[in-house]
């Protein structure tokens, strides 16, 4: 077989391999670390692109690890959702670390930079693995790598808030992993399979014999992945963790990591447990209400925050609610909106965190009330922030608009206009906390540290410009991603 045939595995293994090498590289050739990381991420991006191209032209395909066919071996299933997620991960992960090249030395100790790149690559690899894998236990292994790596890129920063936030995150994450493993045990116990495809075939028959096992497993899965995805009542760890971390970490944690668990949830709910399942209705209803609470309460909390990164973190809680709203509504348009929002929110939230990071980098100011006039002295980051904020509110010609469009349309499709109203109300709430920041940034006189910001390195500005342009481009031409997302949705819903 040619190398291209092994690309699904290589997409995950190559970053892993370079992650192992990174500590050595950091010892011998410090300056190569960043370049290697970039090259590896570029490779994952292009291989995801290649896979996406292949899937779009000739349909989903499977890859057997080591040539062992399921149910004996591990299988990667390269379908629309998987390549979409992989593209999102590598597409956002790349600019974030480009930004990090300049920002990280500012925030971290010299000695741990190499470790940061190691952890970043491991995080990326595990997320890609979660996107591609079709095996329940393999998913668990990647979840664990992801959990530890994402805690580690918080605690790597020398501050007691970071260590404490990372500990809180780790403990809750471990509880989540425990629930996940128990759920896997319960599912395996009654089906004898770990492969998603085989599970989906076995489960309907098993449901009649062991309904309680399945329900308990579902509940544990919801809790396990819900904790990690910060679904509403289980979000307590998120604000501290995402706000205290170094800016690139915040961007990738808020933008990607919580989303990947949502993707895992989507895979499990729609591929393993068929959506028509009798026992699924309450699960979906629960998801709906939890996400509604997440959207409303997350926004409410965001309104009262004073720290810019805390506010963004609370906003993430609300935004993950959109994704789960789409999942819970389960109509074609709503699920499409939810999946689309994974990408859109990854882009805008990463940009917002990086822009906030740029403010902090140049002025050292984190308080929202002190950021007045930042748009006058730092027009590019503030402009990016403004675009991101507009996208959050869902103003047309930004990508956030399309998520809301499809979610609202999907809510109407599902015959639940109430949830369309929820989307609208939350847009208003987003407006209430994002717009004053922009207004203060551009229409106030700069004072104090904001008046004389330090110089922002060109790569950081460049990253913000690229991401900002992305928000607009995907706002004007939503069809760029929509083909992929729409096919993913149709496949998931079996249409």
């Amino acid at each position, binding site marked *: 077989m040619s190398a291209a045939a092994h690309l699904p595995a290589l997409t995950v293994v190559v970053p892993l391999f370079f992650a192992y090498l990174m500590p050595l590289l950091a010892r011998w050739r410090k300056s190569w670390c960043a370049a290697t990381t970039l090259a590896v991420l570029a490779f994952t991006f292009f291989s995801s692109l290649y896979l996406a191209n292949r899937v779009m032209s000739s349909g989903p395909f499977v890859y057997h690890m080591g040539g062992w066919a399921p149910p004996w*071996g591990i299988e990667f299933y390269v379908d629309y959702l998987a390549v979409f997620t992989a593209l999102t991960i590598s597409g956002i992960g790349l600019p974030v670390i480009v930004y990090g090249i300049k920002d990280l030395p500012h925030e971290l100790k010299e000695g741990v930079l190499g470790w940061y790149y190691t952890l970043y690559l491991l995080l990326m690899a*595990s997320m890609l*693995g979660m996107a591609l894998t079709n095996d329940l236990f393999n998913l668990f292994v990647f979840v664990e790598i992801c959990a530890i790596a994402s805690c580690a890129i918080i605690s790597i920063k*020398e501050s007691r808030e970071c260590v404490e936030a990372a500990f809180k995150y780790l403990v809750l994450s471990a509880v989540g992993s425990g629930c996940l493993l128990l759920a896997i045990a319960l599912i395996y*116990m009654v089906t004898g399979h770990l492969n998603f495809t085989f599970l989906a075939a076995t489960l309907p028959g098993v449901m009649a014999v062991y309904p*309680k096992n399945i329900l308990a497993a579902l509940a544990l899965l919801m809790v396990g992945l819900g904790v990690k995805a910060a679904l509403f009542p289980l979000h307590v760890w998120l604000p501290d963790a995402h706000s205290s971390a170094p800016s690139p970490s915040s961007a990738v944690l808020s933008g990607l990591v919580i989303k990947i668990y949502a993707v895992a949830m989507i895979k499990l709910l729609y591929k393993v447990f068929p959506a028509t399942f009798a026992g699924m209705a309450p699960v979906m209803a629960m998801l709906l209400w939890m996400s509604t609470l997440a959207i409303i309460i997350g926004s409410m909390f965001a309104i009262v925050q004073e720290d810019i990164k805390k506010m963004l973190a609370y906003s993430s809680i609300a935004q993950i609610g959109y994704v789960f709203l789409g999942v819970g509504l389960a109509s074609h348009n709503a699920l499409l909106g939810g999946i689309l929002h994974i990408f859109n929110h990854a882009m805008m939230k990463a940009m917002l965190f990086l822009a906030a990071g740029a403010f902090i980098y140049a002025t050292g100011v984190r308080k929202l009330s002190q950021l007045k006039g930042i748009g006058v002295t730092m027009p590019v980051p503030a402009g990016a922030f403004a675009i991101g904020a507009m996208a959050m509110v869902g103003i047309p010609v930004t990508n956030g608009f399309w998520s809301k469009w499809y979610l609202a349309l999907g809510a109407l499709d599902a015959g639940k206009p109430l949830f369309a109203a929820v989307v609208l109300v939350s847009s208003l709430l987003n407006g209430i906390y994002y717009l004053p920041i922009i207004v203060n940034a551009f229409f106030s006189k700069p004072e104090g540290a904001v008046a004389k910001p330090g110089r922002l390195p060109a790569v950081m500005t460049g990253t913000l410009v690229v991401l900002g342009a992305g928000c607009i481009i995907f706002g004007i031409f939503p069809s760029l991603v929509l083909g992929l997302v729409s096919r993913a949705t149709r496949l998931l819903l079996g249409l």
Partner: protein
Amino acid sequence: MRKLLVIVLLAVITFAMVTTVLEMPTFGDPANPTNNEVPERYVQETIRETGVLNVIAAIITDYRAFDTLGEATVLFVAIAAALSTLKAH
């Protein structure tokens, strides 16, 4: 207040899990769903396919070797995480 909450939570979980236990396949029953074609092939074909007598070893290092790569990576990531945390001091 918090204690009460914890107790209620734990009671609910216990109740739910114990009811589930009552319904689970009987422990050790050869007719259990887990004893399907998967372990059967592992037991019967391991020697021919991998040349190993210990089936668990065969699974870890061959059939599901990718999981083991992940396992090693978990170990690696934990070391990296612990070292980076302690080094940041």
